[in-house]
């Protein structure tokens, strides 16, 4: 038992940053719950809160690896915005002319086109950064201006509707409550099976697996979280479809960042570019891949954005890149590169969304919302700097 305790202590000590940000999140929730007489954690607000964070989150989880490799992408907001107006254009205009009355096919095609547009644009930017050595700050700043113009060209300065029922489901749909429960059950079973598999593998390679009791506590903890979440959102309308999509993206990106060579190389490049190069890491290729992944996520984010707001506008995606970057930083990604997690970025995005949502509920004006968000970001990083120094 003392073994387990010391293991726990070590875990807490090593992940102090992760725990600190989780505590901050809980603190924000408790604070707003008190200030709004419990309305804040009501199922409707809770459900909306998670739905609101999805678009920024798609961008943030791609941004983590970009920043980790020592780059930055200032264009993601506009890429997502451009994708959203292109998607709207197809939904409202082009499909209407060429493929009328075929909602399933057109929706699928819109999604594919949206992702392709985002990916292509980031491929070009990634190529310029990785192979032609133009600083990412410049490439993506230029990129965002170009897209700003492109958005005007596509929209001709007007708003394009993208509110066709099936397309709207992407960001506004809900899974039926029973389906939500089934999903929760499946996730927990998968978690459990993968734990068993992991322990077996450790033994196969002659290692001592981590204490069983800890693994079980972990699974129980995650199960409770999942059940509580599904319980609350089911009280409103059910599991939000965009959150479901985001969860998939988070799992995939987390897996890539920690379990594949692409992820490992990204962290090494950010940690020490020269050492990585001399170790045979293909820096150009890996930085390029990171940008391509960013492009796919921008594409998904853009399609969700079009579906979420129901139209494509000239202001689409304005400022989202900064929200995404702020989420990464709040979540512990280092601006110096080499450090950062997908999970952290999601919590960061959740904190930003929670703040916005709470302040809106309290009828705080937009001006003060900005001021408070700015303060929180700077103070959070200040606290982090202070904690690290103390360590």
């Amino acid at each position, binding site marked *: 038992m003392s073994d387990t305790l010391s293991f726990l202590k070590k875990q807490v000590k090593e992940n102090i940053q992760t725990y600190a940000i989780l505590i901050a999140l809980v603190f924000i929730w408790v604070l707003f719950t008190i200030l709004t007489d419990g309305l804040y954690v009501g199922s409707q607000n809770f459900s909306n809160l998670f739905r609101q964070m999805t678009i920024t989150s798609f961008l943030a989880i791609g941004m983590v690896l970009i920043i980790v490799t020592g780059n930055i992408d200032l264009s993601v907001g506009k890429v997502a915005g451009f994708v959203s107006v292109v998607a709207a254009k197809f939904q409202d205009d082009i499909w209407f002319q060429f493929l009328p009355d075929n909602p399933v096919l057109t929706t699928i095609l819109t999604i594919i086109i949206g992702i392709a547009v985002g990916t292509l644009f980031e491929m070009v930017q990634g190529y310029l950064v990785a192979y032609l050595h133009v600083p990412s700050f410049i490439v993506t700043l230029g990129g965002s201006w170009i897209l700003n113009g492109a958005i005007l060209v596509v929209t001709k300065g007007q708003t394009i509707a993208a509110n066709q029922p099936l397309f709207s489901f992407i960001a506004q749909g809900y899974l039926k409550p029973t389906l939500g429960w089934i999903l929760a059950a499946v996730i927990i079973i998968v978690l459990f099976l993968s734990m068993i598999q992991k322990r077996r593998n450790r033994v196969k390679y002659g290692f001592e697996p981590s204490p069983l009791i800890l693994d079980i506590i972990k699974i129980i903890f995650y199960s409770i979280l999942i059940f509580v979440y599904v319980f609350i959102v089911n009280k409103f309308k059910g599991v939000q479809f965009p959150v479901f999509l985001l969860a998939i993206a988070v799992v995939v990106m987390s897996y890539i960042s920690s379990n594949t060579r692409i992820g490992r190389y990204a962290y090494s490049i950010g940690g020490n570019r020269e050492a990585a190069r001399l170790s045979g890491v293909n820096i150009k290729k890996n930085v390029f891949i990171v940008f391509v992944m960013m492009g796919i996520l921008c594409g998904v984010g853009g399609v969700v954005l079009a579906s979420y707001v129901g139209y494509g506008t000239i202001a689409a995606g304005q400022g989202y890149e900064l929200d995404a970057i702020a989420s990464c930083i709040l979540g512990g990604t280092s601006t110096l590169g*080499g450090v950062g997690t997908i999970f952290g970025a999601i919590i960061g995005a959740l904190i930003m969304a929670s703040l916005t949502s709470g302040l809106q509920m309290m009828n705080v004006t937009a001006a003060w919302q900005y001021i408070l968000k700015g303060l929180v970001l700077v103070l959070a990083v200040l606290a982090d700097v202070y904690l690290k120094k103390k360590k």
Partner: protein
Amino acid sequence: MKLEVLGMANDVILDIQNVTKQFPGVTALDDVSIKIKRGEIHGICGENGAGKSTLMLILKGVHPYGTYEGKILYEGEELILEAGGIRQASKKGIAIVFQELTLIPDMSVGENVFLGREPVKRTGINWNKLYSDTQAILNKYDLDIDASETVRNLGVGKMQLTEIAKALSEDAKILILDEPTSALSEDEIDRLMEILEGLKRHGVTCIYITHKLPELFRITDTVTVLRDGKVVTTESTDNLNEAQLIKYMVGREIKERFPRGQNNPGEVLLSVNGLHAVDPNQSNKEVLKGVDFNVRRGEIFGIAGLMGSGRTELVTTLFGEYGKITEGTIKLDGHEINVKNSHQAMMKGISLVPEDRKRFGLVLIQSIQKNISLANLDQFSTSFRINFNAENKACDYYSKKLSIKAPNLEMLCEKLSGGNQQKVVISKWLMSNPKILIMDDPTRGIDIGAKFEIYKLMNQLSEEGISIIMISSDLEEIIGMCDRIMVMCEGQSVGILEQDEFDREKIMAMATGLTKKNHFLAKENIL
């Protein structure tokens, strides 16, 4: 007044009394007492982690008064350096020159010397005064440096001297030098020694921290040996010899510093003929101007040469990461090869332990395991998955084989000592199963114990049939460890010496371009 009385009463300028400094889990200094006499050059030596740097950081005020136990008397008064005031020590006359250069390369010598305390007049910085004061200091100590020169344009040696001038500019009574020669050539070391002797004549007391035993014998009056945070001995240098010192430092006798025995190298594995190469960024700058050598299987082949002789350029070119080859051939196992990058070199069986492990060898913010496996992830991963257990097992094997001292493989490399860091780099490259292991100054800045372990490992590898190409600035080491030595000078190979021809002076003469091997031999024969 008081000073004088005390100064007369005892000759001790700095009296460190029973200082103990603890960090969580480690006692860095354990009841350390050292008396530094006025006007002497006092050497402090010990392995890495012996407590030398902690002691120095206390004297600098980085670990302020109150964070350690014991007492330090300076000029008879208790030395109290408070937290946060890094300049206090220099104002009191204690000047410290750190191992790593702390100059700003794009500023002039004068700007660097007066950085943070520029003389001002009403309209801003008084540049005339700044430069004339700097020049006065430089002239006072006979340093041949122009105060208005940009630091970037100075050689490493002059940079080091500028650093010393900066330290002395505040009327230092005690000058503390931490490994000042680690980046200097033999000539520059000579120059530094002369300057230190000059300072001694000016009455400056000097604390000289180093690993390098010959320097201790050459320059110091007294030597204090630290081991595991304790003072092992303080003795007059005249009463010591090298073997004793090593014994004090490592706490055990190392019979042979260089454990290289006889060996029987096999057939030729690598042969380089007439190699010319240019700087990849400046195609008119030729960095290799004719290099010829071959390396046999299981041989330890040394490359000697001064900084800038092209030795690092040669090995990084062999590794596919630097020079653009314009002429000549490289053959491995009889087949001509042309590697374009480190990955291709590894595939062919060439590995490089690069110089400057912190800059080129390690991702310091990552764990031991991630560093060891970085070059070898292909061995235990598919496109979609790294097999963590296989990775862990393989890294564990090498960490044990090289006896890396760390609680586990999750430990971050930045927390390891220099010797252990180097072992991590070597592990990384051994895991790639090389036929040829190139080591560029592998023992630079690591302690004697770890050096010995690396030497033993080199022997073991050569017995296993791996060929080793070793670059070293330490002539004794290269003579002690290698089967043959190639000397380089200005991008050319000027000769290859067999074991029975090894001689310090001969190598130096060839490396400085004074003579080619044959000339030298001819001259010797005549004599």
